[in-house]
Every structure is written in structure tokens, then in C-alpha cells.
């Protein structure tokens, strides 16, 4: 294929294939005879598996950007790989540009990974209009992958809307009794957000003539991000984008469409909704809203964090009192996605990477939970917790699967759920931006020299209470469904998992363990992209730093420099680390005073080290590790 516009030669248009293979599958399915539902399933499954196999090529993504042979790199998108770009609507300045980085890579893989699992799960669940259902699933996949890999505003918007249509039909046609109400709510909610986003997108688009080479307009993400915007403009535009994404996530209080949609959707619809669609909100924030408007993001960060923390606790507490298993899982999604949003709002490398990991783990765990709910629903045609009890005895294999998924969702370490949530909380507790100004530093008397981190700690602390509630609602539900004596005779003859069900549950289970034990497998491909993301957010963060905050950072930098055992900042250290101002000699007295006030006496060696430290710090290349001297 011909290289264009400074792009390197494309060896295989892998991303385009990933988008259009499912479309091809949908077209093929459309031409199959209606009665052959087995054939529809077979075709859809085949396409799902082939797409997944093909998507594994993306694992060649090179986080170090060292080899250019394996993955295609573009000069215009230096953080992206597998970039393809073709002319599309030249008059509008819209191009077909796709590419992935460490942020979208795993979400694409999650999408392709869940697809065959979902298709397998529908074999017995969907018996009517199989053909249309499979077409909807395939189109949906194309839409999701497209939205994840698009690097062009218009292209993204089109895929974003494309996802909506099959989902609308899925709930509307194959849904439960109140599906019409749920579909309408889902559709209107999302459309309100989408529309605002479109307006904001166009506003920025009409500013791109200032930054393009030829003076024309461009939808390219690179140009959209370069448009100079005043602070006031940023606030409004960010607000519009953020609202669209917040509805999708959903962030409290925009969440009420989710329980309805989940409860009415068929199992596969719920899996895909929880597994990937919700992440489109957080992904959109990371890809568009946050890097395009960093100052606005940082200003709104504490407010977003407030809503996230409310969502975490609120979702969990409401989940606790649900009588319908599926609604319970839906509310648990509100809680988990709250972690995700908190991580993004906290803007530390740990929290952002944690948020990304929560997206993946939640996709696996909640996808698994919905599949498990689907299993019992198919057998008993009810989802009310009260109708069950004692199932563990009659369905031991299912109980084992279900339990491991439940514990993953509850965030037990060693399983997938823990890593992301912990990183989010840990990152949030260290955040520099989660405060409402100097007047509101809480806990200062307790936390000593902590400053704004004390505020961040309050956020992290309240959010961490979600781990308690998470255990309560999940274990209570599990107990009422699986343990105890069998009260309802209808449950006594319940079938355990069949081969097909074991087949589609097992990959999820394996992922629960792999993601929990070896997160670095996934995260090693995220680090460089998160660093790049943090670099984009840096202007915003720096603007937010208060005088006192700078001072505190300075102080802590000094004191920690003397720590021989503290890990040296890694090469990929957060950009904020680099932003730490150098310690000045004037603070030496303060450090001494602090150490003295805490009841320690400096010995001679200690005095020498502090002096050495400050001499080193005062010098231009200061801040060197004293141990090196």
C-alpha cells in the first residue's frame, strides 16, 4: 500500500481489517437464509474468532518505539502505532486515520476477546431472529473498534454513533418486558451527550484553520489538540465533551439509564455494554476531552472526583438493596466505573494507569458476572435473588466459576480486580490536583507536611470504603443465591454448566488470574502511553499547583533525597517528578527544625549529609543522589 503524507509503508492494514471484518461478517450473514440459525451462529462465531486471532497481531505494539519494522509509526502521531491514513472527505478536512497506543490497545483486544465469548453465550439465550442478532453483534463490534482506533474527530463521531444503533435494537428487540422504556431512556440520554459533544467538536474544528499548514480546517486529532483556546472556552467545551462521556461511563448522577438498560438487555447485550461500551466514556475522556482541554480538566478534577467518589459509595450501597441480580451487577458497575473516573481525575501516573486497568478488569469481571446471571436466568427465567438459594450444591462447577468471578469483582488481591482499584486509590492519595484551593486543606494537623495530599487522601479514603461495600453486596448476593438449603424445589434439578458454557467461561476465568498475578504483562505496554498522556496534561497540573504545594513538594523532595533505600525515580518517572522544583538552600533550616521538633537529634553523619544535600541541591545540577558522592 502506498505511503501517504509522511506515513511509513503499511505492511498490513491491521486496524482496518479489524474494523471491516465484522462488517463483512454482517453482510455475509445478511445473505444467509433466515431459517438457518445454526449457520448464522457459526458464521458470527467464526468471524469473532478470526477477528480475535487477527487482533493478537496488535501485541507486536512496541511500547519503547524502538523498532519501526514491526509496527507502523507516523510522524504526525508520534505516540501511535499501526497508523493508517487515507483521504476521506477532503472538502471537510476529514481523513480516515486510525492508530493505536497503549491506551486503546488493550481495549481493542478486550473487545475482540469478549466477542466470541458473547456469541457462544447467545447460542441458547437467543432463539428468535438469530440472524438479526448476529448482524447487530457484528456491527456493534465494528463500531467499537472503530471508535477506539479513530484518530480523526469526525471518524470517531461516526463510529461513536454507529455503536448506538445495534445496541438500541438489541435492547429494543431482544430485551425484557420493559425494553421500550429502557431503550428510549438509553437512547435519549446518550444522544443528549453526543449532541453536545458534536457541537463542541465543531467549535474546535472551526478553530483548526489557525494551526493547519494550509489554513484549511481539519478533523485530525493532532490539529484538534493544537487549537489555542482561552480558559473560558476550554471550560465550556470541556463541559460538553465531559458530559457526553460522563453519561456513557456513567458518572453519578447520570447513571439511571444503566440499571434499566442492563436489566432489559439480553445477556450478550449486557456483557458488551458493561465490557466495552461503558469504557467508551472513560476512553473518550482520555483520548479527547482531557488532552484537548488540560487546564479545564485540572480545574474540574476535584469536582469530577467528588462525583466519582459519590458514585463508588452510592453504587455500592444501592447495589446492596437490589432484589434483582442483574440490577445489582448494574449498580456495581456504577461503583467500579467510579474508580475509573477517580483515577482519571486524580491525574497521577498510578491512578491513570490504574483507571485503565480497572476498565479491563471490569470488562472481564463484570462481563463474567453478567454471563453467570445469564446462566441462571436461562434455566429458571427469573433473576430475583429470592427465587434462588442453595444452587452451589446442585451446580458445583457453576458455583466455582461464579465465585471466582465474584471475588474478582470484589477486588481480592491476586485476581484482576484488585490491581486497578488499588492503583487508582494509591494514585489518588498522592494526587496534586484533588483539592479546592489552599483554604480547604483538611487533616493538616494529622498529616504534618502533607498539604494538598491530605485532601487527596480524603478522596482516596472515602473511595476505599467501596472495598467494604463491594464485599458486602457481592457476598450477600452470592450467599443468597448459591448457599443455604434449597428452598425452591424448582432449583433442585438445575443443570450444571454444559460444555459450551464451560468453554466460554474458562477464558474469562483464566484472564481473572493472569491479570491479577501478572499485571505487568499488560501494563508494560501502557507505561509509555500513560507518560505521554501525563505530559499532555502537565500544563494543566502545573497551573493548578499552589504556592504552598510547590513549597511542600520542595521540602519533601529534600528530605527524601537523603533516603538511601527509597527507590530512585525510574527513567519513566512521572512527569510531575520532573516538575518538582529544586530544593533551595533556604530550606535547610526548616528540615533541621522539623527533625528536631519530632524528637530526633542529628548526629554528625546526619548533619554532614544534610549539608552535602543542600550544597548539591543549590548547585545547578543539584538534586543528585548523595550516595553517589
Amino acid at each position, binding site marked *: 500500500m502506498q505511503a501517504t503524507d509522511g506515513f511509513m509503508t503499511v505492511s498490513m492494514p491491521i486496524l482496518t481489517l479489524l474494523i471491516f471484518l465484522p462488517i463483512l461478517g454482517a453482510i455475509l450473514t445478511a445473505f444467509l437464509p433466515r431459517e438457518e440459525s445454526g449457520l448464522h451462529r457459526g458464521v458470527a462465531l467464526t468471524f469473532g474468532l478470526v477477528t480475535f486471532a487477527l487482533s493478537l497481531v496488535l501485541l507486536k505494539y512496541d511500547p519503547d518505539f524502538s523498532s519501526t519494522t514491526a509496527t507502523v509509526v507516523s510522524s504526525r502521531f508520534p505516540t501511535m502505532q499501526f497508523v493508517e491514513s487515507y483521504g476521506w472527505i477532503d472538502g471537510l478536512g476529514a481523513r480516515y486515520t486510525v492508530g493505536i497506543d497503549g491506551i486503546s490497545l488493550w481495549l481493542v483486544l478486550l473487545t475482540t476477546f469478549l466477542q466470541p465469548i458473547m456469541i457462544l453465550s447467545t447460542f441458547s439465550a437467543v432463539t428468535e431472529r438469530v440472524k438479526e442478532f448476529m448482524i447487530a453483534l457484528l456491527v456493534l463490534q465494528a463500531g467499537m473498534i472503530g471508535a477506539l482506533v479513530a484518530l480523526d474527530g469526525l471518524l470517531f463521531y461516526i463510529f461513536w454513533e454507529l455503536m448506538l444503533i445495534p445496541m438500541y435494537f438489541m435492547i429494543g428487540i431482544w430485551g425484557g418486558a420493559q425494553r421500550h422504556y429502557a431503550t428510549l*431512556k438509553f437512547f435519549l440520554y446518550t444522544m443528549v451527550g453526543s449532541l453536545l459533544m458534536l457541537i463542541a467538536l465543531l467549535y474546535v474544528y472551526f478553530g483548526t484553520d489557525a494551526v493547519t499548514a494550509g489554513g484549511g480546517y481539519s478533523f485530525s486529532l493532532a490539529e484538534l489538540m493544537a487549537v489555542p483556546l482561552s480558559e473560558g472556552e476550554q471550560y465550556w467545551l470541556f463541559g460538553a465533551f465531559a458530559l457526553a462521556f460522563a453519561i456513557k461511563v456513567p458518572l453519578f*448522577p447520570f447513571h*439511571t439509564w444503566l440499571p434499566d438498560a442492563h436489566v432489559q438487555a439480553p445477556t450478550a447485550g449486557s456483557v458488551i455494554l458493561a465490557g466495552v461500551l461503558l469504557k467508551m466514556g472513560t476512553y473518550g475522556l482520555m483520548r479527547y476531552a482531557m488532552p484537548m482541554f488540560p487546564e479545564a480538566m485540572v480545574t474540574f478534577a476535584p469536582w469530577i472526583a467528588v462525583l466519582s467518589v459519590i458514585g463508588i459509595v*452510592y453504587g455500592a*450501597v*444501592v*447495589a*446492596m*438493596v437490589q432484589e434483582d441480580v442483574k440490577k445489582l451487577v448494574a449498580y456495581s458497575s456504577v461503583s467500579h466505573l467510579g474508580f475509573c473516573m477517580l483515577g482519571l481525575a486524580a491525574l497521577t501516573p*498510578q491512578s491513570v494507569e490504574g483507571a485503565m486497568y480497572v476498565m479491563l478488569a471490569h470488562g472481564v469481571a463484570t462481563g463474567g458476572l453478567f454471563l453467570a446471571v445469564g446462566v441462571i436466568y436461562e434455566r429458571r427465567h427469573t433473576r430475583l435473588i429470592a427465587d434462588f438459594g*442453595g444452587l*452451589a450444591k446442585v*451446580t*458445583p*462447577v457453576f458455583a*466455582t*466459576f461464579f465465585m471466582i468471578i465474584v*471475588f474478582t469483582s470484589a477486588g*481480592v488481591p491476586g485476581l484482576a480486580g484488585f*490491581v486497578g482499584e*488499588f*492503583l487508582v*486509590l*494509591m*494514585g489518588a*492519595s*498522592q494526587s496534586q490536583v484533588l483539592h479546592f484551593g489552599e483554604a480547604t486543606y483538611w487533616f493538616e494537623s494529622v*498529616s*504534618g507536611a*502533607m498539604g494538598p*495530599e491530605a485532601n487527596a487522601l480524603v478522596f482516596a*479514603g472515602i473511595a*476505599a*470504603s467501596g472495598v*467494604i461495600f463491594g464485599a458486602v453486596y457481592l*457476598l450477600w448476593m452470592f*450467599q443468597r443465591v*448459591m448457599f*443455604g*438449603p434449597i428452598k425452591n424445589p424448582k432449583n433442585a434439578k438445575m443443570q450444571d454448566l454444559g460444555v459450551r458454557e*464451560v468453554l466460554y467461561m474458562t477464558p474469562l476465568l483464566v484472564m481473572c488470574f493472569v491479570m491479577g*498475578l*501478572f499485571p505487568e504483562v499488560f*501494563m*508494560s505496554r501502557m507505561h509509555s502511553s500513560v507518560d505521554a498522556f501525563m505530559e499532555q496534561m502537565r500544563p494543566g497540573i502545573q497551573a493548578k499547583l499552589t504556592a504552598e504545594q510547590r513549597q511542600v513538594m520542595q521540602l519533601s523532595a529534600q*528530605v*527524601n533525597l*537523603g*533516603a*538511601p*533505600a*527509597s527507590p530512585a525515580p*525510574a527513567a519513566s518517572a*512521572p512527569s510531575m517528578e520532573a516538575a518538582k522544583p529544586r530544593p533551595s538552600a533556604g530550606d535547610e533550616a526548616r*528540615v533541621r527544625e522539623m*527533625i528536631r521538633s519530632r524528637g*530526633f*537529634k542529628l548526629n554528625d553523619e*546526619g548533619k554532614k*549529609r544534610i549539608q552535602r544535600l543542600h550544597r548539591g541541591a543549590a548547585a545547578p545540577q543539584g538534586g543528585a543522589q548523595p550516595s553517589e558522592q
Partner: protein
Amino acid sequence: MIPMFAMGASDHDDHGHDDHGHGDHGDGHGGHGDHGHGEHGGGSSWWMYLLGFLVLAPTLMCLFNGVVGSSGVSYNPATGEYSSPILMAIILAPAIGAVINGTIGQKLPRPIVNLVGCAAIGLAFLFSISAVGSLMGLEAPAAEGHMAHQPIVYNAFKWIWVGNFQIPAKFVLDPLSAVMILIITGIGTLIHIYSAGYMSHDPAYARFFTYLNLFCFAMLILVLGGNMLLTFVGWEGVGLCSYLLIGFWYTDDAKASAGKKAFVVNRVGDFAFIIGMFLIFTAAESLDYQAITQLATTPETAGPLMGIATAATIFIFIGCTGKSAQIPLFVWLPDAMAGPTPVSALIHAATMVTAGVYLIARMNALFILAPTTMWIVVVVGGVTALMAATIAVVQNDIKKVLAYSTVSQLGYMFMAVGSGALTAGVFHLMTHAFFKALLFLGAGAVIHGLHDEQDIRKMGGLRKSMPIIHWTFLVGCIAIAGVPGFAGFFSKDEILWNVFAQVHAGAPMPGLHVVMWIVGVLTAGLTAFYMFRLYFLTFHGESRVAAGVTPHDAPAAMAMPLIILAALSAVGGYLGVPHILGGLVHWIPGIGEAMSHHILHTWLEQVFTPSANALSIRFEHDQEVVMEWVTMGVSVVVALGAIAASWMLYARPSDVPKTVAERASLPYKILSNKYYVDELYALLFVKPTLLIGRFFHKVVDEVLIDLLLVNGAAWVMESMGAIGKRLQDGNVQRYAGYVVLGLGAIIFLLLIK
């Protein structure tokens, strides 16, 4: 696949382990009865396990040593650390056992499952011995003429690695974790063997051994983890296994609830643990124990840690109260007795519940920076010890007595570590592991021998029919009561003496320590009293056993662990002989013969050096010898007196207990209802949370957001449409009127401008 919930071929309910089903034993208790107790399933074949174990284990050991050299310890000059993969072998052995039994165990014959379960932990024990042996060899001269043991470190892989938050899967064997792994794997092995007998009629034996192995795996991670987060992994892991094992007989809703309660209450503690980690990371930028200790003990780097030390240690201590069942989070442990008795012995007496004590000992360098936390620990420990002991006095369930006794003894350990007597805390942890495991296993053997009877009012006179259980149980009672010469005496005496000694050591509140010492002595008396009450009611007097039940003694697989643990309970205390009693001669290589009264103290010294320096004060021994004799004398007299009282009241027919219960009916009622703490918590936390949840769901979600905002927005749109519709009704005169009105408005606006 993994039928971990499989109950086996037969229907479990028919073999119900109905602990609450006192009385009619003619039916339904087939789980342990009616299967011919003469030749007990586990009994006849336990030699086989032992033999297989004895053959298999050394073979594997030889293989291991052959492959990686002697214990595989190698020196890495770059980091200055000794490293050995044997640490991984210790941890992974039980994990492999769990995987085997968890996946194909249901299809394997029972002896194989037993063998796999026992061999997995037994191997871990042998590996532990080997590793600790190597550790003893790695001595290097340290300050003050003592020898320090270089820890053995094993970095397995990068676990979580984001920016400056770097958590390796790093395992560290130092003297403290050495003590812990020997307890875990040693007592663990005995309890596994015992379980082969105890569970010999339960169809879900494979699931049982899976969970038990999994627990040991998690517990080993907890103590060997080189940083707080790995400890947290083990911490939650043991909680998870505890949940699974308490609710092992899950078809009983009450047992499943007990498991859930344990997990949730522990989660409250874990929540605090997490906050503690945040604080520490904020200050230290590391969660590595070695790094934290180094930062905290180096004056010029301790600044930030001092700032958060009090807050962080309080949060961590809250975590410890969860796992170690202290006030306010002790409520789960008594309920946890719903699990099979070997579980109670292993998890809820010997190992898991001591994790809190271990953690404080591990983080002593940080705790010592926070005197406020230290006295909170002492007070919480002391109050818990006394409170639980008073409850234990009136309990009638043999396991409940032991459960409250465990809570009480854990309180002792916290008193010790809170007083800075870390060695004493760990010492009591160890002796307690011996005698409490023994007592639980003994109780389990009694329950087993009486076909699932747990009510001591339905026992009595069992010493004739259960001689082995009787004698070993007696040893356990003597040990816990603090009779001189037995294990409990040494460790308890050391704790009491250290609490008392704080008065002279310049503690911030000397009065508090006097009070705490009195609390400790009172608790010691109560302990001796209720333990011997239990002993006399169970084994002496007239038999009150229900008709139709023929008590039988422990089968061999259960008797062997009892005898070994009884021996340990008897002599385990000599690892820490108080110096006024002479102590032992300790040989220190390279330095020569040195007097050491306390082997354990010498062994743990390097771990506790940081805090020892801070508290080094103390006083000259010779000046205080008299005081030490006096305090020791007081506690011995109190203990013996309490035993005598117990003998008078319970060994012979006596009306006094009944009279006391009637006369003091209110205190008796409060005590038998455990101070109504469960009820209080339900009122304060459980019900309000559910209420809030319903309020959020019904009011906020359904009314405020959906009805007012969402449907309200729709209604506004609709109304606007309705108004617009009326405006354009086709009436031309009205349109003209609008035009005039509009014109008038414009003119008006122009005029006022």
C-alpha cells in the same frame, strides 16, 4: 473442570455436621457416627500417609538440593543480598497441592487426596527447616558484639510497576518470618494430618484440603512478603480462605452467614490497612519493609515518616484488630467456630489471627515513632483480653470458650507489642499456637468422639473413655493457665513483666501501665478459671452424655498431632527462660560462649533492634530482680488460685455456679449475650446502611433523578410543545395581537434605554 463446591457422591445433608443439633443422636449425625468408629477411616491408613510422606519428602528435598545446591542460597554481590529459590518452593508447595486437589481431587480416591494435601504442607515444612537452617548459617557480626542474620531474599517478578510505585513479588526470610513459617508449616502439617482423620466421613474432603492448602499458601505469602502490599495479598488471601472454610458446610445458612461476616468485618480492617499504606507511601515513597525500617530509623530521613507515623500506625492497627479479632472488630471470630474444628485450630487460633501481631512486630520501626498508637495498642489489647475472658467464663459451647479464649490471648499479645516487648509478643504468639492448636484439636476430637456434640453441659466424665484426649487436653489447659514449667507460663510472665516494667521505663503514663498490669493479672486468673472449668466439665464428674452415644478416643491420625502438640506445649517455653530463672547458655559462633537467658530474644534481636534502641532505656537487671520475682509470684498465685476455685466449683457437684448465675442474673445475662455487641453493631451499622441504600434507590434514583430530572426534562419539553401548539392555532386575529404586543415591547425597551 473444578467442582470445588461438589459435595461428593452422597448427599451432604444426610451427613449433616449439624453442630447445633444437640440431643437426639440416633439419626442424622452419620457424618461422624454410625459408620463404625472401631476402625476409623483415617485411623487405619494414617501410617500410610506418614510412610509415603517420609519417603517422598526427603526424595524431593534431595532433588531440590541437587538442582539448586544446598538450599539454593546464593550471594549476589551487586545487591549484597542472599537469595534462594527455596522461598518460592515453600510458598508454592501448598499452592500446588491446592491446584491438584482443587481440579482433579474429586475424582481421586480419598487416601490420595489426603496424601497430596498433607505432603504439600509437609514439604513446605521441610523446605522451611532447610531454609531456616541456611538462615542460621548466614551470620555476620553486627553492632554491639551480636550476630545478625543476613535475610534471604527472593525477587520473583515485578508485580505492579507504575512510575515510582514499584512493587516486586519479593519474599524475605529473616528471623521473624522464620519463626512464623515454622509455626505455619509445622503446626499446619500436624493439622492437615489430623484433618485426614477428622474429615474421614465428609464427602467434600477434596474441597476441604484444597482450601486448607490454599490457606497455607496465602499465610506464607503474608509472612514472607517483603513489602506491605504483598503482606496485604496474603492478608486478604487468608481472609478469603477463612471465608471459604467457615462456610465450608454452606448448605447451612447460619454457617454461610458466619463466613460472610468474617470476610466483611475483615474488610473493614483491610480498608484501614489500605489507608495506612497510602499514608506510608506518601511519606516513604515505598512499601518495602526494609526501606521503611531504614527510613524510620535514620534520623535525617525519618522526618516525613514521623509526620504520618501516628495516623498510619493507627490505621494499620485497625487493620490488625480486624484480622486478630480485637475490639472493635472481634465479633467475627466467635461466629467463625461454624467451620470444621481443624480450621478453628489452624486459622482461628494458631496462624491467621496472629497476623496482626506479626504485622506490628514487622513494622516495629514505624510503630515506635508513634507513642500514642503504642498505648492505644496496649489499652485495646488489655481491654479485649479482659472482656473476652469474662465472656468465656459463661459460655457452654466447647469451641466458643476456646474462641473467646483466643480473642483474650491475642489481647495479651497486643499488650506485649504495645509495650514495646516485641519478643514477648512473638513468644506468646508461638506458645499460644502450640497450646491453642492443641486445645482446639482436643476439642475437635471430643466433638468427633461424641458425634458432633459441642455443648459441655452434655459432656462430663470423658477422661475414662478418651484417655489420650484427656491427658493432652490437660497439658494444654495447664500451659494456657500459666502453671510454672509449661509453655504459657514463660510467655505470659514475660508479657506481664514487660507491661509492668514500663512503669519504671519512663513510659508517658505510668499509671496506665499499672492498670494494664492488673488487667493482665486478672485476665490470667480468669483464663485459668474458665479453662479448668471447661476441663472439669468435660472430662470429670458424672457423664451427661446423651443416651445412645458411645464416646470414643481419638483415632491414630488425630492422636499423633495431639501428642506432638502436647509435648510442644509442655516444653516450648524453654525457648525463652526469664533471666531470673537462670536462662540457658547460648553459643555464638565467632564470639564464643555468651549467656543468653532467652534464645528467642537473641534470635529476633536484629529484627527488633530499631525499636530496642528507642526503648533501650529499661533499667539495670539486678535492681529489678525483686520486682520481677514479685510480679511472677503474683501471677502464679492467681493462676493456681483460679484453678483451685475452678476445681471446687466444677470438678465436684456444686450448686454454687447455678446460684451465682441466679443471684447475679443481670451480669450473667450480659455476659452470655456477649455484651450485646453484635446487636449494637446491627443497630449502628448494618440497618442504617441498608436503610440508606433503600433511600438512595427509592428516593434519589427513582424519584429525584428519574422522576424529577429525567422525566421532568421530558415534561418541560412536552409543556413547551403544548404552549407552542396553542400559540399557533391558526387564529389570525390572535397572531395580529402578538405582533402588536411585540411591537409595544420593543418600543418600551427603546424608550427606557
